[in-house]
């Protein structure tokens, strides 16, 4: 794999950018303190940044980044709910961006400080969950689909039926441990919209899952890929990035987004309210959207980048990998999860409690 070199050019380019930033700041409202300490607290997912990205940013800007990790969006939300304990940049997924905007937990971004927005694919420059991208910029995106062991599965399991409504692979199926996602994927299987909130249909999805439960080995806590690799299960519902990582180790593993379509997710860069270093945060977000920095990240973590300029720098192998970039017609059938309100959250949670208890 050709790893793009993060060389002096981008640094110089970046410094120029920083100059622009500094120039812009002189006229910025006085809320930005004159001398912000050269520090930044980045709250990220694990293995979700390039190997040298933080050092490169430090070399370019002198800002020292300390990165802290969260395991899921719920954790991120719970942690920031009581007040921001000091994070500057966070990486929530689209539905949580929406939640956090609704709750006033995000700071509006100053697009003038992030000239690299120009690198972003136009389709990502606006989003239903954040109209005008006032609070969030895209970092990576992907899908939820089916990971499977080719030698144990007949053909390509491109139908949710194989994991949600069939005893064909009984005892060798892993589903996901997150109730909301499970209900949403079942909705896709039933032919309803992903974000269907009708209680009767939630009930219907619940019944499907209860019926399928005897054939399911485990509702995996984000480790379906490990179960697949160790031979514990032969077919599982998982995030594409997780399956991609085990595909590198085992040629016998494949990934497919079923024909009914799946979930399309987008992790975003945001600044939480009360961030101690907003100025550095803007510079950092701009740096992550830089073509070379972005390419280095995408190449290392193997997720789909919305950064057009970065994509151009990456290998054909990356750009044509169907597990990273599913075919256009599949993407069209996928949907984005939205924040569907407290009533929905409660109903889904109760349905999930019943499914697990039955």
């Amino acid at each position, binding site marked *: 794999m050709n790893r793009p070199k993060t060389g002096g050019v981008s640094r110089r380019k970046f410094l120029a950018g920083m100059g622009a930033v500094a120039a812009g700041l002189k006229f910025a409202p006085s809320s930005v303190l004159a001398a912000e300490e050269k520090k930044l607290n980045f709250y990220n997912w694990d293995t979700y940044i390039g190997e040298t990205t933080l050092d490169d940013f430090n070399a370019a800007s002198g800002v020292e980044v300390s990165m802290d990790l969260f395991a*899921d969006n*719920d*954790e991120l*939300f*719970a942690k920031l*709910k009581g007040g921001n304990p000091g994070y500057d940049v966070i990486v929530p997924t689209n539905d949580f961006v929406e*939640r956090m905007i*609704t*709750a*006033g*937990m995000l700071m509006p971004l100053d697009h003038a400080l992030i000239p690299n927005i120009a690198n972003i694919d136009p389709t990502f420059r606006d989003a239903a969950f954040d109209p005008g991208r006032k609070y969030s910029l895209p970092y990576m995106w992907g899908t939820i689909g089916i990971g499977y062991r080719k030698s144990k599965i007949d053909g390509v399991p491109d139908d949710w039926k194989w994991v949600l409504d069939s005893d064909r692979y009984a005892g060798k199926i892993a589903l996901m*441990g*997150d*109730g*909301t996602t499970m209900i949403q994927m079942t909705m896709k299987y039933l032919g309803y919209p992903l974000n269907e909130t009708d209680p009767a249909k939630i009930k219907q999805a619940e019944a499907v899952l209860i019926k399928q*439960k005897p054939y*399911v*080995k*485990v*509702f995996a*806590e984000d480790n379906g890929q490990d179960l697949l690799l*160790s*031979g*514990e299960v032969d077919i599982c519902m998982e995030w594409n990035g997780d399956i991609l990582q085990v595909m590198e180790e085992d040629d016998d593993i494949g990934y497919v987004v079923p024909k009914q379509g799946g979930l399309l997710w987008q992790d975003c860069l945001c600044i939480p309210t009360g961030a101690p270093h907003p100025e550095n945060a803007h510079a950092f977000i701009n740096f992550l959207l830089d073509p070379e920095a972005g390419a280095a990240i995408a190449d290392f973590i193997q997720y789909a980048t919305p950064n057009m300029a970065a994509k151009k720098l990456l290998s054909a192998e990356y750009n044509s990998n169907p597990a990273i970039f599913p075919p256009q017609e599949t993407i069209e059938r996928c949907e984005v999860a939205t924040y569907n309100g*407290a009533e929905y*959250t*409660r109903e889904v*949670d*109760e349905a*999930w*409690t*019943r499914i*697990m*208890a*039955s």
Partner: protein
Amino acid sequence: MESWRRNPLTFWVFALPPSLWLAVFFLAPLALVWMMSFGEKVGLIDIVISWRPDNYLRAMDPLYLQIFLKSFWFAGLTTAVCLVMGFLVAVAITFAPPRRRPLLLLLVMLPFWTNLLIRTYALIAVFRTKGLVNFGLEQMWEWSQSVLQGVGLGDLGLLGPEFEPLQLLYNNFAVVAGLVYVHLPFMVLPLYAALDRMDRSFIEASLDLGAGHIRTFFSVVIPLAMPGIVSGIIITFVPALGSFLTPDLLGGTDSQMIANVIERQFKSANDWPFGAALSFILMYVTFIAIALRSLWAGRARRGSAA
């Protein structure tokens, strides 16, 4: 036991620091959550304390009661297994040569200085279909098969056509095994502390008077070790009741415990008041059990004094 009035200075010296600490750094935070359990959420973040018991009423739904029962069953089974294993280990350590005792005690504790999650994942590596246990069993199966072959019985298929790995993970067995693995030292330590200074002449006397080892064990050793047993049971049972990582990682599709539901309320369901109410129900139950015990112990003490 003396009345505190006889020695007020000593009493306050011992009473003040822990009491103050408990009041400020435990009871005050707890009170916040207790109030929350009578609240309702408004919007995404705000919680209004309305002092209505709605959350408790919701928890009385048979759905949640059933999960409570299941959790008690898991925790009880775990405690029973820990008690038997822990007693054997504690006795073995107590009667080991004195120089070796600290080392043995340390060996019991050592695995627990490894992070709980890492240990749980290590347990997965041992239990899984292609894990250590099944690997060992498969070796044994092959070995026995070749022995059978050697004596001319190989073709009868006495051991089945091929090795069937045991399904040790992702079921209720795995949850109890995992809970025992995690909580065993909590049982061993208080048992050892109680057994260590036990006056051995009692045992000798019992044996001299003609009681067998088993009878001596049940009528002398156990009563003497009772305080240790009781604290061991409490500090094993209660955390086991509140575990959520173990059922999460080792459990199957029906191994949900109440703490999993509680955890979800604080995370994905984002319903802190209901989570607080569920936690407090768990606490009320345990609290009542402990209060009854100390009441009973107090009465027994008074009874024997009279």
